[in-house]
């Protein structure tokens, strides 16, 4: 019997897999698919993951999706914003962040497009990306895989890529650890030389399609197919974590 699933659900299972084996660390997730993925990881293979309400609390039972501790759940620890920086500097955290631009070596930009002195388009700023990427494992989520996101060179390096970390060495490299990039088309990871490559394409997507939507040459020779979500994962996503289907608003199909 074949089980029907959506593209968003494939992405969520892939996001969940990014926390596999992370251990007892804070799962930091930006975006709908990463947030659902972190909860799915916690309910399946990684029960020790720590989840936050996105504000001041860690939750042993998280509140409804997109809501804070004020709307329910069970608080297990108090972590105001100042505490978040202590956690990330301790290394007990693993992120899945967004990216407005991402280059061949995993340099990420969320700050601005164009010259930083007078940007063509101001974005959200570097936020915590510089600190995250040199302190703990960081993965990325890209909801629309396109040559506008995957560029030869990012305009402003917010999240540090493999080439920059290796060139700097020392304290910049010590805890630098880029994992995977999950997109609406594929899962990417990094080859030994630090360059992005296609690890798997989602069911129904071809390697050629991913390459066409990537603004630099990317290796897809060993690409497999991204695994399908299991029936139990689909039940958790649809009935427990995201019954109102917020995921469909982030990923079509």
């Amino acid at each position, binding site marked *: 019997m074949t089980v029907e699933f959506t593209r968003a659900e494939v992405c969520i299972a892939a996001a969940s897999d990014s926390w596999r084996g992370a251990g007892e660390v804070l799962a930091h997730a930006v975006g709908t698919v990463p947030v659902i993925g972190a909860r799915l990881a916690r309910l399946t293979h990684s029960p020790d993951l720590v989840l936050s309400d996105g*504000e*001041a*609390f860690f939750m042993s039972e998280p509140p409804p999706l997109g809501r804070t*501790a*004020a709307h329910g759940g069970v608080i297990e620890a*108090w972590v*105001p*914003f*100042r505490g978040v*920086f202590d956690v*990330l*500097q301790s290394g007990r955290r693993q992120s899945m962040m967004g990216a407005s631009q991402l280059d061949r070596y995993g340099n990420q930009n969320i*700050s*601005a497009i164009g010259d*930083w*002195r*007078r*940007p*063509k*388009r*101001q*974005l*959200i*700023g*570097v*936020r*915590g*990306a*510089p*600190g995250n*990427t*040199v*302190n703990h494992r960081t993965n990325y989520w890209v909801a629309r895989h396109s040559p506008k996101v995957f560029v030869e060179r990012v305009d*402003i*390096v*917010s*999240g*540090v890529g493999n080439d*920059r*970390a290796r*060139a*700097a060495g*020392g*304290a*910049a490299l*010590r*805890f*630098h650890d880029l994992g995977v990039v999950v997109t609406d088309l594929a899962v990417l990871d990094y080859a030994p030389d630090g360059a992005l490559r296609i690890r798997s394409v989602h069911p129904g997507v071809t390697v050629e399609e991913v390459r066409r939507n990537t603004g630099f040459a990317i290796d897809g020779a060993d690409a497999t197919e991204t695994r399908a979500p299991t029936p139990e994962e689909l039940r958790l996503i649809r009935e427990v974590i995201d019954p109102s289907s917020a995921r469909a608003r982030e990923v079509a199909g």
Partner: protein
Amino acid sequence: MSLDDFAGTIESGMTIGIGGWGSRRKPMALVRALLRTDVRDLTVVTLGGPDVGLLCAAGKVRKLVYGFVSLDSIPLDPHFRAARESGAVEIAEYDEGMYVAGLRAAAQRLDFLPTRAGLASDVLTMNPDLRTVASPYSDEEYVAMPALRTDAALIHLDRADAAGNGQYLGPDPYFDDLYAMGADRCYLSCEEVVPTERLLAPGADGRAAPVQSLLVGRMYVTGVIEAPGGAHFTSCAPAYERDEAFQKEYATAAKDPDAWRAFQETYLSTGEDGYRAAVESRAAAAASGANERSA
């Protein structure tokens, strides 16, 4: 002291720190008071929200020093975006953790604090004055985040006594104590000024605030300003949540010069009492509109 007394202490060219976080517990009444003065050329140090937008729109900012500028439910303040894209203000953009290290250095009267955040990123490019510092214990080198010392800090808390002992009652202190400690002078606005003995006394519900809520001691505070609703339209939990409808009106108006002139006329041209009256009549109109629709 009054809002206008406070505003009279701020001079052009000063460096001011503004507490809160994004669109949360910002000292908006103090910011509105600054908008009514002819103060200019400010250097503003903040984890920014609409405080930044309003000061930029009024042409009062020469330089912005920030970890981010966000309205939380709206990713970016439109006035800030316009100021950046027109090159109207000088900036120092830092990683959020670096920014906090800078506040801590200022509070401790240190020149800098070492941090890993920023290494190998373009934060170093965007801030060419930033230096690294070698560890005397290993071969490692860290960013030497300079102290974010300010001439004056502006913060808003739930309660304070007249002497300046300040108390927050929500889930997050943000960094308001660090702003107070890292400034030559600190102005604290609050929802309510209470006698000192009431800070920890049981309230009407029989529950007392915990001692941990006493965030800022009076030796760091220069002036206390009672400003009920003084964080509006940002959140001041548990007293009130963010006024999302009003924030949306602000952000929409900020994108259009004519709409912005109308917004200024309605809300910013008649003093804090006028502001509160306009906000209340707006809320009343929205409520009656809702009733008409549901009738």
